C-alpha cells in the first residue's frame, strides 16, 4: 500500500525579473518521510522551501500539502505546516515563553494544548531554565532551538527546515538529527534543505539535488547512484556523487 502524499509540487517556477530562481520543479513527498533538499549555494533550495511555506508566491505551478492547494487555500495549508528558517528573526525583547505564546496564538492553538506543548518542547529542547529571560540574551544555538519549538507548537504534519545545522555545536546537531528521525517515525513529514551532505546521508530517506533551479537527481541514495550510472562503485558516497552531479568532476574524483 502506498503512503499518502504529504507534498505534491507540479511545475513550480519562481522568477525575479529575468532571473529564474526555480525552473519547472515537480516532485512528490510521501507522508512520514524525511526528505532532503541538496544543492550548491544559489541553486534555489531556500526559494523552493519558502514557496512551500507560503512565504513566497510561485510565478507558476502549484503546491499541495496533504491534498490542500497552497494557491487556493493557503490558510488551511499553513495550518498543518511548520517552518524553521536558516536565520530566524525572533523578537529580542520577548522572553522565550512569551514568544511561544505569541506563536501559538498565530496558529490558533487551544490554550491547554499550547500550555502542554510549551512545557514539553521547552524541556525537550533544554530551554526551560531560560524561558523567562529575554531572547536577546540567548546564544545562536538557543535561538535556533526556540525557533524549532515555535515551528512545532501546533503539532504540524509537515515540518519545513532550512539549513537546520547552521551554527549548532556537535551535541545540538546530533540531537536535532535524532529528533527529525523521531518525528518522522511518529508520522510527521520532515522536509529539510542542507549543505551538510553527511546530515542528508544520515537523516534523509529520499533526496533531491537541485542545480540552477532544476532537479538533477531524485530518489534514495541508491536510486540516485543508479540514475547517474555511478561507475565508480556501488558504495560511492553522497559527497562525490553530489560533486559530480553539480559539475565539479575533478573534485569528485579526489574524494
Amino acid at each position, binding site marked *: 500500500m502506498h503512503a499518502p502524499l504529504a507534498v505534491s509540487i507540479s511545475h513550480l517556477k519562481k522568477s525575479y525579473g529575468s532571473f529564474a530562481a526555480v525552473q519547472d520543479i515537480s516532485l512528490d513527498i510521501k507522508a512520514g518521510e524525511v526528505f532532503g533538499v541538496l544543492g550548491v549555494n544559489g541553486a534555489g533550495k531556500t526559494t523552493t522551501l519558502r514557496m512551500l*511555506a*507560503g*512565504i513566497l508566491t510561485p510565478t507558476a505551478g502549484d503546491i499541495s500539502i496533504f491534498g490542500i492547494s497552497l494557491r487556493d487555500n*493557503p*490558510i*488551511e495549508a*499553513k*495550518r498543518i*505546516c511548520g*517552518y524553521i*528558517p536558516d536565520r*530566524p*528573526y*525572533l*523578537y529580542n*525583547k*520577548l*522572553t522565550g*515563553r*512569551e514568544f511561544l*505564546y*505569541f*506563536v501559538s*496564538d*498565530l*496558529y*490558533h492553538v487551544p*490554550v491547554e494544548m*499550547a*500550555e502542554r506543548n510549551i512545557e514539553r518542547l521547552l524541556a525537550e529542547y533544554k530551554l526551560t531554565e*531560560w524561558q*523567562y*529571560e*529575554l531572547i*536577546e*540574551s540567548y*546564544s545562536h544555538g538557543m535561538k535556533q532551538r526556540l525557533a524549532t519549538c*515555535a515551528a512545532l507548537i501546533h503539532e504540524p504534519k509537515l515540518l519545513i527546515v532550512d539549513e537546520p545545522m547552521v551554527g549548532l555545536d556537535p551535541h545540538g546537531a546530533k540531537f536535532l538529527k535524532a529528533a527529525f528521525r523521531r518525528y518522522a517515525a511518529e508520522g510527521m513529514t520532515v522536509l529539510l534543505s542542507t549543505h551538510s551532505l553527511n546530515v542528508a546521508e544520515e537523516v534523509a530517506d529520499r533526496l533531491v539535488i537541485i542545480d540552477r533551479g532544476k532537479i538533477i537527481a531524485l530518489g534514495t541514495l541508491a536510486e540516485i547512484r543508479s540514475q547517474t550510472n555511478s561507475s565508480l562503485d556501488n558504495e560511492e558516497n553522497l559527497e562525490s556523487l553530489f560533486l559530480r552531479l553539480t559539475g565539479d568532476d575533478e573534485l569528485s574524483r579526489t574524494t
Partner: protein
Amino acid sequence: MVLRTAITLVKPKVLSLKNSIFKTGSWAQQALIILGTIIVLAWLPSAIFFSVRDTLKEFSSDLQPGGFLELIATTFASIFMIAACIHALQIFFVARENELFLLAPLTKAAFFGGRYLESCFAASWVLLILFLPMLYGYAAHVHAPWHFYVFSTLYFIFLILIESAIAIGFVVLLSRIYPARRLKELFIIMALIGVILLHFYSKSTSFVFPTIHDGNIEAFQETIRAWHKSIAARSGQFFSLPLITLQRGAFFETIALFCGLGALWGLSYAASLRIFSDFYELSNALERWQHVRKPQQTFWLQKPRSLFLSFFQKDLHLFLRDIAQPVQLILFVAIAGVTLISFRQSSLLKGALGGDALLFDDIIFTVGLLGHILLTVLFAGRFIFPALALEEESRWLIQGSPISGLDFINAKYCSQSVLTLIILLPLYVVIGFLSDLSLERITIGAVLSTISILGIDAIAIGSGSLLARLWSNNLGATTSTLGSFIYMMVSLLILPLCLVFSIGLASFYSLLVADSLSFNGIVCCIIYASIIRLVAGFFLRRASQMW
C-alpha cells in the same frame, strides 16, 4: 594616510548607495529615484531660502542686529551637537563593520580619522541642507557681499569639525561609565531635562507665549525679542559673533577668526584622538550588557484568546522593555504638558481677551485639541508608521502562519490603536482638567480625539506599509541616512491629512458649541467618524494588499 583610510572606509557606503540606485529595478525606476531625490534636494533648500528672505522683509525695521544670526547659529550648534553625539555612537560603537575595520592593519589614528570624517558628514548633511539656506536667505536680505556666503559656509564647516571631535571624545568617555548601546537613552533623558528646564525658563521670559497683540507679526517680533533677552541667546552670541564679524567683512578680523577656529579644531581633534586611543574598546562597551541573564516580569494573559490581543500583548511588552520608547513618550508628554500649561498660565492672553472666560476656554479647548492631534501625528509618525516595517523581519513567522493579510493588518491596527488610546487619551483628559475645561468640553474633545486617533493610526499603518521593506527601526537615531530621510519625508505626508481632520474638528466644534450637545452635534460626530472610518478602511485594505 588618514584621508586615504577615510576614503577606503567610506567606499563600501558609497558603493552600496550607488548599487542600490543603479542595480535595482528598471531604468525607469532608477530615473524616478534620481529625479525624486534631485527634486527633494532642490526644492527644500530653495523653499527655505525664499521663505526666510521674504519673511525677513516684514521685520526689517524691528529686527535687532544679529538676532536672527544668533537664532540660526545657536540652533544649528545645539542640534548638531546632539546629532554628532548620536552619530559618534552609531559610527564608533554600533556599526557592524567596525569589527572588520579593527581586524585590518590600521593604526588607531587612521581608524579614528576615517571614522571621524564619516561621522562629520553623516551628522551634518541634513542640517546643512536646512540651515545654510536660512543663512543665505538672511544674507540675501541684508545684501551681504559674496565673501560672506563663502566664509559663513566655511564657519559652519569649522563648527561641524570641532563639535564632531568634541562629541566623539565625549561619547568614548561616557561609554566607559555607561554601556555604549544604552547611550542613546541617556541622550534622550538629557533632552527631556532640557525640555523641563526650557519650561521653567520660558515662564520667566514669556518665551513660549509672548504677549499676543492683534497680529502675528507682532507676536513673532515678541518671540524674537524674548529670545534675544534669554540666556540661551546670550550664550548663542558665542556662536553668532563670528558671523557678525564676517558680515562686517574686516580682513584682519576674518583672518584672526579662522586662525582661532583652526587652532580650536586642532586642539579638539588632538584631545579627542587622545581620549579615543586611551579609552576606546569596542567589545567592552557593547558586550558588557549583552547576554545578561535576567528573568523578566511577564503579564501575558492566556485568556481570552484573540489575534488582536496577542499582537497587543506582544507590542506592549516590546514597547515597555525598550527603554528608549517610553522615554521618548515621556518627552512627547512633557512637550504637550509644558505647552498647554504655559498657555493656561498666560495671564497675558486672558488680558488680551478682555477677561472673557468663555472665549478663553474655547481657545484652550480648540488649541488643546489641535495640539493633541498634532501630538497624535508625531506619535503615529514615530511609533505606528514604522510598525509594519518592524514586522518585516518576522515575515517568515507571520506569513508562514495561517492568518490572512487582512486579519494581520487589522490585528496590528487594533493593537496599535489601543496602545495609542491608552497613552494619549488620558493625556488629553488630564491636560483638560489642568486647564480647568468644563466636563462637557473634555467629553466632546475626548470623543473627537478618539475618532481622530483611529483615523490617524489607520493612515500611519497604511502608509507605513508602503515602506515596509525599507528597514529602519529608529527614525530618531538615523535621521541623516538617505533612507531615513526619505522615510521621514513620507511620514510627514500624514500631516496635511491630519490638518484636514483638524479643520473638520474645528467646524464641528463650532456647531457643537452653538447647540451645546444637541442632535446636530451628535450627527456631525457620526458623519465625522464615518468619513474617517472610510479613509481608514481604504488605507488598511491597501496595507493588507501590500503585505
